[in-house]
């Protein structure tokens, strides 16, 4: 590394340091006792992870139920978002159907729309449908709100697939569906992986929708579990809070580490311009 880079490195270090300290202390404090206001840990302990094996009074419920709920919530909405985006994005990119321009414009508007302003209306609709305070209700809402972005991303990926590849497939005697499945989908696989990952993580970290639309303990997810730890208590246990936070964040980190490779794996094309 050239020596003259040190001013940049110094600047970056100074800017990054607060973040690093925060991350570092959420790990350190989760495994140790530290007096509030102090930065020096006193002893190593796993006591703050007691929520894993015994119910914590403040949380009113098991972390495992919340984890399962979060997993079902994030997975289902990610799968539905991905499947709908895969087909809708293809249609918008390739097929000439009535009101295509309207749908495209609608996507962009919805994408830029502050959807949280709809929360009252959504609340009323869910109540009418009897889906208020259920996991399904939150999944439906979350999926619907994620769709515009997902469809838009997939349309962008489909747009990069050369038209000739599809035409070649059709000439080779394959139906449009076969062409889509065997020839086009593999080309947009990087986008597909990115979208699954993105919508799963988005579901995993969603807080407002479950908080407002499913406040009961049956449909509790990890974010609302975490918030109930501090909301319900006057005497905050910061170490417990950080331990739960660490537990909540670990899958995200793991997923990033696992899928990074897939995201980088972009195919070299056979089409030379």
């Amino acid at each position, binding site marked *: 590394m050239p020596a003259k880079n040190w001013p940049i490195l110094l600047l970056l270090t100074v800017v990054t340091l607060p973040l690093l300290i925060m991350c570092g202390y959420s790990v350190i404090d989760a495994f140790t006792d530290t007096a509030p206001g102090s930065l020096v840990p006193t002893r190593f302990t796993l006591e703050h992870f007691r929520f894993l094996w015994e119910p914590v009074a403040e949380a009113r419920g098991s972390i495992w139920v919340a984890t399962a709920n979060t997993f079902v919530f994030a997975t289902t909405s990610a799968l539905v978002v991905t499947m709908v985006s895969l087909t809708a994005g293809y249609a918008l990119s390739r097929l000439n159907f009535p009101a295509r321009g309207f749908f495209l414009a609608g996507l962009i508007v919805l994408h830029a729309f502050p959807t949280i302003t709809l929360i009252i209306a959504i609340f009323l609709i869910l109540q009418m449908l009897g889906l208020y305070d259920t996991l399904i209700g939150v999944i439906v809402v979350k999926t619907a709100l994620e769709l515009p972005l997902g469809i838009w991303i997939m349309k962008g990926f489909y747009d990069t697939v*050369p038209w*000739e*590849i599809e*035409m*070649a*497939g*059709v*000439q*080779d*005697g*394959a*139906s449009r569906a*076969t062409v889509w499945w*065997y*020839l086009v989908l*593999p*080309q947009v*696989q990087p986008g597909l992986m990115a979208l699954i990952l993105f919508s799963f993580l988005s579901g995993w970290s969603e807080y407002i929708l479950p908080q407002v639309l499913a406040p009961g303990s049956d449909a509790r997810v990890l974010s609302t579990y975490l918030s109930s730890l501090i909301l319900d208590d006057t005497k905050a246990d910061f170490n417990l809070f950080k331990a739960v936070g660490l537990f909540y964040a670990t899958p995200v980190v793991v997923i990033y580490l696992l899928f990074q490779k897939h995201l980088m794996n972009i*195919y*070299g*094309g*056979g*089409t*030379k*311009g």
Partner: protein
Amino acid sequence: MQLDLINFTKRFGDTTVIENMSLSVHSGEMIALLGPSGCGKSTTLFAICGIHRIDEGQLMFGGKDVAHLPSQARNVGVVFQNYALYPHMTVAENIVFPLKVQKMNRTDREAMVRKYAELVRIDALLDRRPAQLSGGQQQRVALARALVRQPDFLLLDEPLANLDAKLRLEMRSEIRRLQQETGLTAILVTHDQVEAMSMCDRIALMNGGRIVQYDTPTAMYERPETAFVAGFLGNPPISFLSGSGLGLSEAQVAQYGVRPESFGPQFGSTLSGRVTFVETQGREDLFDVRLTTGEILRSIQPAGSGIRLADTVNWGVAHDKLLRFDQNGQRI
């Protein structure tokens, strides 16, 4: 198989791209659709393979009208300009794809892939992916994939446009060899007259959505029906000039066409001019000669004539090779 396109019309929105065009290709023949950009040659090709709908007219494959059949039901092999190989598949998977679609059994499939890979000489590359191949090799894969399903027709859309000059020469004879070995009826779309003349039995020269002449390369070169045809074919190109420049005056003749090989010292010394441009091509030299009337004639001569820029020359034209055109550009 015989191909007949009868009174074919194609419109995009309100624009008529091709109007009332008819074209017949005999069985086993290779023809070129030649013409400048935007003349409708690719549109015609895509109409034949079914990518574009035929608005009016008939398309007969061996006497059967297929104009309303989808691409999948037409059994036409197409090689696209950019090859359109499937980038996520190996060479072998690319070639076998049409057979998989037909649900041919595995042993037959593999035998066919081997046979056609050998035919186009890529049998050593079957496990590679398209991105690992050179342009010429990708072209060969595209050819194998088009041929493996034993199509009734082979359509080639500017197949050599993306290759460098040396490969282009090689693939030119290679494609012709494959076409002759398989006995396929083939249509080549190109804007390069050299490709069309060297590869094809007949050339359909198109301009503005119409076929202006459909003939063998030799006939078209020697007996062009219009000044456009004469100007389009031939490299270096033909020169056009008025009668006064040549010292000729004939009724109805608006312009004369003189091919570069029909002007030079071997045809007498009736025309005087100054050399304004010399291009050395190795075996031959190309000269531009400005006549006293100000008109320019091109001449191609064997190298070593010693004639240099700004020299004055007295050369003649071969009168029996003169092409005469009337005011509408029709040859007389």
